[in-house]
């Protein structure tokens, strides 16, 4: 849907959906911290940046309405190849070789990892981050402070010619008097 939708804004939104799906896959793999970081970085930063860019570009919807079916042969071929590849991989890995019960001479193994007191990735990162390594956390916050100061310093123009809102005046306005009907004639 990212490439199929007519409206680029919709495509970006579908891209967000793709990122969410990828994060879900990471979650299924047990990489919970990575999944969260993936969401934060890709959806929070990159997709929003794309969205801004797309909104600024002012693309006309009509331009994109070309015939997409002519990409079908090549695209379909690649798609089939990928599908076959996936099937091959599935065939190799997902089929269990032999069930463990057939080999009785082996001692029953103990799943030690399940007996260990378990903390998730995020939990352990948090526990390290806010205790032993809080220094890193503080320095990262200072970096963000500098980034903020820099952005304000480079973009905020204090000049007579720049039109700015006065928050107190803005807040003091009465809603009922803001929009008025003027009878002409």
């Amino acid at each position, binding site marked *: 849907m990212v490439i199929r939708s007519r409206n680029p804004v919709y495509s970006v939104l579908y891209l967000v959906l793709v990122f969410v799906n990828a994060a879900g896959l990471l979650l299924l793999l047990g990489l919970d911290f990575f999944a969260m970081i993936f969401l934060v970085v890709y959806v929070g930063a990159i997709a929003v940046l794309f969205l801004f860019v797309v909104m600024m570009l002012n693309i006309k919807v009509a331009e994109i309405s070309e015939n997409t079916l002519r990409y079908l042969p090549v695209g379909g071929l690649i798609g089939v190849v990928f599908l076959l590849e996936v099937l091959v991989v599935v065939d190799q890995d997902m089929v269990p070789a032999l069930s463990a019960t057939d080999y009785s001479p082996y001692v029953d193994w103990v799943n030690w990892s399940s007996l260990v007191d378990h903390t998730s990735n995020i939990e352990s990162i948090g526990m390290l981050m806010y*205790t*032993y390594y809080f*220094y890193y956390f503080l320095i990262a916050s200072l970096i963000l402070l500098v980034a903020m100061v820099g952005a304000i310093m480079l973009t905020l123009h204090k000049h007579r010619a720049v039109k700015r809102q006065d928050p107190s005046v803005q807040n003091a306005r009465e809603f009922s008097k803001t929009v008025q009907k003027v009878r002409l004639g």
Partner: protein
Amino acid sequence: MDYLSLFENDFLVLMPEIFLVYAACFLLMYGVLVSGAPEHAYVTNTGFLVILSLGLALLLLINGPVTDMLLMYNTLKVDYFTFYVQAWILIIGIGVVLMSFDYLKREKMHMYEYMVLVLLSCTSMLFMVASYDLIAMYLAVEFQSLAFYVIAASQRDSEFSTEAGLKYFFLGAFSSGILLFGSSLVYGYTGTTNLSDLATLYTGFESLNVASGGLYVGLMFVSVGFLFKLAAAPFHMWSPDVYQGSPTTVTAFFALTPKLAVLALLTKILYVGFYDIMGPWQKVVMVCSLASMVVGAIGALGQTNIKRLLAYSSIGHVGYMLMGLASGSVEGIQAMFVYMVIYVAMTFTTFCIVLSVRTADNKPVEYIHDLSHMSRSNPILAMTLALTMFSMAGVPPLAGFCSKFYLFFTALSSSLYPLAVVGVLSSVVSSFYYLRLIKTLYFDHTNTVHSYVSLDTEKAWLCALSFGVTMFLIMYPNPLFLASHKVALALCALIR
């Protein structure tokens, strides 16, 4: 478990840094609340407050209760080496702020944030020098460079400054990426980021014949990242443009502090963490040193812009300093720090003079020929500049000779003959353009008219002090030599 008790004494040792961070936050608030209109008085006010806080931090640093300690769960280390470098960073910070007042006023840059960012970048460099772990190192480097990108672009109405900021930002981000990639490779192959752990791990490493190409690649990437930040020669492309584009005080800041802080950090990492695999990194440093000396000498020949000339000259100086680093001995480090201090003094003088000369239409000087007639309109200033140039070229009774001589001596004693030979040759080549500047000062007769503003008090003091160091160091160089020897010993004592 009460984790705070683990860090009980650490805050005491980190007092200067903590104070500076608080001061920066306070000054930001102060600037927002007090400075309503863009006026120069606020900038001066904030500037003096920044000087005050840097001075207080210097006092805190000198009177610190602990001289030697690992802190923040082995991520920072304080010893005489960090003390010395941090003290110099604070002094240079004070000097740069003093230099800036008059310039900012004349250039109508009414931004108190400039001062606060100088303060913040000084803080970041204090952290940088103290860091003892690859992650802490990366974070501090990033902190420092982010502040630098902003002040490089701080002159908003000049497209040169914007260009400088953008170029610095892109290449800086690039080098940060290289640095981070190298650190992650090192972490991947060793499983540790701590420098002392790395040192322990590498004991007798080269005799073990372990195949560890990835580790060497990681080390290479880390060194290249730092050499990028230092603007050493194959990675120097950005520096003339950034030096030219940034406001002149910022250029002075760039020429002074990052050289000191980044070189100190690189020395620490290579000497503490990777000393036992010296072979690979010594080659990198040697090649960069050779290339920087040659590029610094040859590249500056064709320059007519003063700031570009100074940029190339600083590339050359970095090459000489790397020679000390490549020698891999205590004397090499000592010579490097001696050179660094003298370089700081000479650069301060030069930039004070460049800042105090303006063309007839009240613009800052850009070209070398703008400096002609100076020997007649302001003979003392011209004399100062000429002597500083002689010192940079390495003419005997001045400080520049002293430092260069010592460096060549150590390079020879650790059998780096090519470095020493190329160093002497490029020093001869580079004296050409220093002498050309002197010729312009004294013998060129052009018809351009210039207005020479008299130095303001702050710059006059700075200029006199730094020139005094350049001039009279040869009379009594012992304190400097002893202090840098102690620095080198403190650094090398880390190698167990």
